[in-house]
């Protein structure tokens, strides 16, 4: 019973962090209607940024949270502006331009392999002030980096959700997401909104990088590990939905940690795919998705 309870606690904490890795993906899809295949690479960039920042300055990982996401925001903002926007403009009448998907795939190849050229293939870890610390509650052991990851993840999701509803830019993002032509007519600059959406999505990947680095390792193709899982999470929760991404993440985290009590971790992976396909067939718009988007 206790091991099961432990698995549930672990699953929820890790699940929220998975949700965080999927938030940027779902936001970018929601606004731009583009599945960003470079998302995992952006996460990798976020993890490397956090890694080097903490490694070189020896700073507390919580402080990296203040520095890394803004840097990544500009990285994403200008990447969308320079690389992706031109393709978008060429296909402006298509609702879900497939060429943009391919461009993001190209970005994925370039970023992952640039990292390989710069940093080499080895797995890197950095000992932060919170690495390896855990405390016990009753008989449950809670790992501090994962608990703070959970708190930051939920906080980011709530913050993003409020931002989308309460601020002018957030509303412009939503308007563009609902109907880009009409938003254009109302004076919203569609491409600037895309830059901002991409920037925020990348910044959230930076937050995820800071959260993951205290208990995980980073290497150039680390994004692929989270990428496929993030795809599954956003489809599960409903592409474009912020709450859906968190819910999907927690579902996946729970399945992973509870099922791994009974079987090997490679089989739990197979089960996650099976659950994913079942949900797609039964309710393609996902748990909390928008009917228009599938």
């Amino acid at each position, binding site marked *: 019973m206790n091991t099961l309870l432990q698995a549930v606690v672990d699953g929820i904490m890790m699940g929220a962090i998975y949700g965080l890795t999927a938030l940027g993906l779902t936001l970018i899809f929601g606004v731009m209607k583009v*599945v960003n295949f470079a998302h995992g690479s952006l996460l990798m960039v976020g993890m490397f940024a956090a890694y080097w920042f903490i490694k070189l300055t020896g700073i507390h990982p919580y402080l990296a949270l203040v520095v890394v996401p803004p840097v990544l925001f500009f990285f994403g903002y200008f990447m969308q502006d320079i690389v992706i926007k031109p393709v978008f403009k060429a296909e402006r009448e298509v609702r879900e331009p497939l060429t943009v998907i391919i461009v993001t795939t190209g970005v994925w190849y370039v970023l992952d392999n*640039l990292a390989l050229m710069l940093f080499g293939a080895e797995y890197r870890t950095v000992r932060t002030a919170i690495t390896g610390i855990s405390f016990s509650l009753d008989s449950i052991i809670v790992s501090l980096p994962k608990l703070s990851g959970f708190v930051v993840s939920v906080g980011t999701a709530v913050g993003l959700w409020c931002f989308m509803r309460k601020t002018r830019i957030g509303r412009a993002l939503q308007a563009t997401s609902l109907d880009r032509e009409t938003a254009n007519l109302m004076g919203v600059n569609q491409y600037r909104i895309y830059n901002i959406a991409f920037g925020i999505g990348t910044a959230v990947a930076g937050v995820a990088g800071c959260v993951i680095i205290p208990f995980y390792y980073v290497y150039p193709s680390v994004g692929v590990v989270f990428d496929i899982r993030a795809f599954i999470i956003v489809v599960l929760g409903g592409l474009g939905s912020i709450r859906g991404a968190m819910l999907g993440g927690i579902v996946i985290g729970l399945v992973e940690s509870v099922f791994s009590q009974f079987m090997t971790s490679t089989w739990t992976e197979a089960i996650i795919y099976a659950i994913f396909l079942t949900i797609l067939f039964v309710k393609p718009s996902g748990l909390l998705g928008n009917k228009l988007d599938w």
Partner: protein
Amino acid sequence: MSRKQLDMTLLALAGLISFGLPLLIESPTYLQILILLFFYAYLTTSWNLVGGFAGVLPLGHAVFVGIGAYTSTILALQFNLSPWFGMLVGGMVAALVGVAIGKPTFRMRGAYFALCTIAFSEGVRVMIENIDSLGPIKFNGPRGLLIPLKGESFWNYQFMHKEPYYYIILTMLVLVLALTWFISRSKMGYYLAAGGDEPDAAQALGVDVAKYKLIALGLSSFLTALAGTFYAQLMLYFYPKGILGLDLSFEIAFIALIGGRGMIAGPLIGALVLRPLNEFTRIYLSNQLPGLHLVIFGLILILVMLFQPKGLTLPLTRLYDRLASKITTTGA
């Protein structure tokens, strides 16, 4: 010389060259590169039936390659059946699987369909990697299957030299190109194109879009699986991550998109550009700077999408048209 004569002469010349190449090339390494080039052109042409004509983006076609390879190899290892027979069985299994996943997924929009095909093929890969043996049937999990050497024999689909493989894949490629040419000019081709561009309008005009997409996917899966058997027999070894992996699925889609999706010559042109680039940059660059060849690959992908979003076939056709009109007018 009229334009038609010019076209025919060039086509005949291309046929002659591709038929005679093994006589000129002695190095098995280069012949292998050519064989793989045709192999990818074949796969992409099969992919093009759904990915190009039907206007969706399947990103999990490796699953059909894997079904073909596993079916024929398991039948040969367990029941001593000829891989030629197993190839047809594998094709039929793949067609059934294709229709089964196409039926629920074709309702979805572009992005969902692409993600669904990825998830399906990755799911199958993870399953196979977990299965060591199923009853008496060996899968060997992640280690894959090894085909024992039985000596040169057509029945066993094993040859000591590369040339027979070259001619087999060349024949397959020519046949599949002819088939797509035929389909693109048939009623089904028009229905598919209509359904891909304007599904709602086509539906309103009474075209059963879903049915034709399903037929296209079934056919595409069948043809793709045949190449799986070919690959298994060529290499005599395969493992899930290689033959069922995302890299293969993505490469097929890249070749199609760079060449020109939905165009008959697209896959061939895409393979002619990307395959040599891939092989040579890997051979010459990956030792000095691992990763550089993939950076180049990614950059080319981005640049082609930026400047020729419809692929390279269109500008090349235009160039050929200009040259051809010069030749035919000055010649006449």
